[in-house]
């Protein structure tokens, strides 16, 4: 099976403090990879490395290689704006723009210079359908996105990411701000989306990781303790710390 990301010797420092220590892993294409671990273990930081959102943080320094389609994303020649069109992201809290639903989804394509109203309309409809939101909002596409419920907003954010047709979608605890019903809807959606996209999801919930993911990586103190298929991690963890964590002894 193909890999979408190859990470070699990745180190990340905030000023003097080292937040990620010598990570080596590969992430499979068209799979859901879950990143688990206690708070502050570096899993979100790692996720934000994958589309270079850490660039925005002052004093953040990165060593090592992250290869996507054979190109190092930290190579000076790599264009970060172009990279982010290939690697989409969904954030912890739903963060729709204060515009209409239509404009929210059309935002990315518009930034790519697409002005044709017909094409935009098609992209918006397709994306909303893929995000399983179209049925609920098709009659109010031009109303403000701020009027949607939390779960709907988060699915809108997913639709917004899909509209760019990325290779990978990064999800940073996408359901932590949602109620159980909205959460299960998003999980169903992830199941559906992995047919066309590779998905990397950071989650706090063991159950969620075991439900939705194919692979799981366990982070602790900036290191990857163990990475394997989700079934192996949850049934036969090789490392004692992994076992302690998934059985709820700490974290």
């Amino acid at each position, binding site marked *: 099976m193909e890999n979408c990301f190859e990470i070699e010797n990745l180190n990340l420092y905030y000023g003097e403090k080292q937040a990620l220590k010598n990570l080596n892993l590969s992430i499979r294409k068209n799979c859901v990879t879950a990143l688990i671990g206690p708070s502050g273990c570096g899993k979100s930081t790692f996720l934000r490395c994958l589309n270079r959102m850490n660039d925005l943080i002052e004093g953040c320094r990165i060593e090592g290689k992250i290869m996507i389609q054979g190109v190092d994303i930290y190579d000076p020649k790599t264009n970060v704006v172009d990279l982010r069109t290939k690697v989409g992201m969904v954030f912890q809290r739903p963060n729709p*723009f204060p515009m209409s639903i239509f404009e929210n989804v059309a935002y990315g394509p518009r*930034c790519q210079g697409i002005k044709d109203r017909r094409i935009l309309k098609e992209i918006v409809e397709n994306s909303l359908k893929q995000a399983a939101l179209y049925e609920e909002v098709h009659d109010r596409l031009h109303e403000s996105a701020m009027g949607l419920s939390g779960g709907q907003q988060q699915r809108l954010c997913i639709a917004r990411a899909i509209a760019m047709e990325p290779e990978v979608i990064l999800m940073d605890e996408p359901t932590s701000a949602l109620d159980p019903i909205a959460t299960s809807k998003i999980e169903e959606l992830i199941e559906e989306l992995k047919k066309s996209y590779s998905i990397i999801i950071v989650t706090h919930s063991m159950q969620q990781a075991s439900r939705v993911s194919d692979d799981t990586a366990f982070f602790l103190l900036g290191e990857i303790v163990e990475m394997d298929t989700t079934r192996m991690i949850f049934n036969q963890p090789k490392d004692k710390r992994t076992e302690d964590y998934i059985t709820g002894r700490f974290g």
Partner: protein
Amino acid sequence: MNVTKKQQRQRTLKDAFLNGLTAFSSMLSVLVLTILLGYVFSKGIGLVNVDLLRNQYWSKSAIVAVEEGTQSGTFERPEDLPKEAVWSEKWGIALIDAVSHEKQALVLVERVDENSVFAATVDTSAGPNQGKSYPVVPGLQVQKIDFTDQQGNANFTGMLASETAEEMVHALDQAVSIRSVFIKTPGGGIRGSLIATLYLIFVSLLFALPIGVASAVYLNEIAKKNRFNGLIRSGIETLTGVPSIVYGLMGVSVLFPITAAFGATTTNILLGSLTLAIILLPTIIRSTEEALLVVPQSLRDASLSLGASETQTIFKITLPCAIPGILTGVLLSIGRIIGESAALIYTMGTFINDSPSLLSQGTSLAVHIWSVMSGEQPNFELACAISILILVFVLILNLTVKLISRRLNKAWY
């Protein structure tokens, strides 16, 4: 610790005294505001009317001649004419006594019958309008009327002979034919200064708004935290403490060459606007920055993660979210423009110009006040009337800013 009754009473007394002192101090400020407003309004309100806004400041004189042939008739006194007005049945004109704000007696035209000779007069003063129709209309001051009396002698009546309206009409009734009228347009208006103030507002914001907003965007969205950007920031902050008169000096020394390149030969309104633009920069930068700070970072992240460039994020997400804050800055700036005087006295001069243009001298409302106050005979009434306008305007601006900032605080999650 034992506190005796006496000590306790003393303590209560002392507390009451101190509290009373604070209340008294606060009342002082209320008192000052009341006296100030009371003074300005009582002194100026009499002059605040549409004429003040519409009239020119300098009155213009003209001598208008009556066309030959058309002469007297019998005109009935209109019923709605005020009692104080004196009507001339023979000539169909009503005159009325008035007092200028310089406390001089005036005779004004109150009404002119459409068939009266006065309705068909011609300008005789030298100039481009010579020979053109210039009818005597209500509101004009009548300085003098030349006429031929029953003996065929040339005679005149009017304010130049210190005559009242009553006496003038009486004299006119003796006249056989009217020859010419010396009239003056009413002055003391602030039309020119109003226009100049509008010029100032638009032109200074035209420069200050884009530069200010762009600076705020740079400082808040793009700049890395380093020494150089720190210097830029403290440079802008220092501007706030510079007295406005020093900005005036800067205007005439730094900016005058720029306006001279456009053909200005004296201090001018453009120069005033450019100077104001610099005065406004810190205000606009600060309120824009305050607005940018409350735009949630998550929106910027979302935009960037969708492959938008930083500039696209700024123009499509961050700035639109900051509009209420920028608007606050604009309103505060307008308040500052209206109130500014010292810097403008240096850069625009104090000549009250009735038809200001960008490259001519002129006065804003505030400088107009300075101009009428700094002469030999300070004109308190006019100064207070303009002050009322300024105060009302500033009050409205402040209320709007309050409303906006209340809404601003509610927005964003």
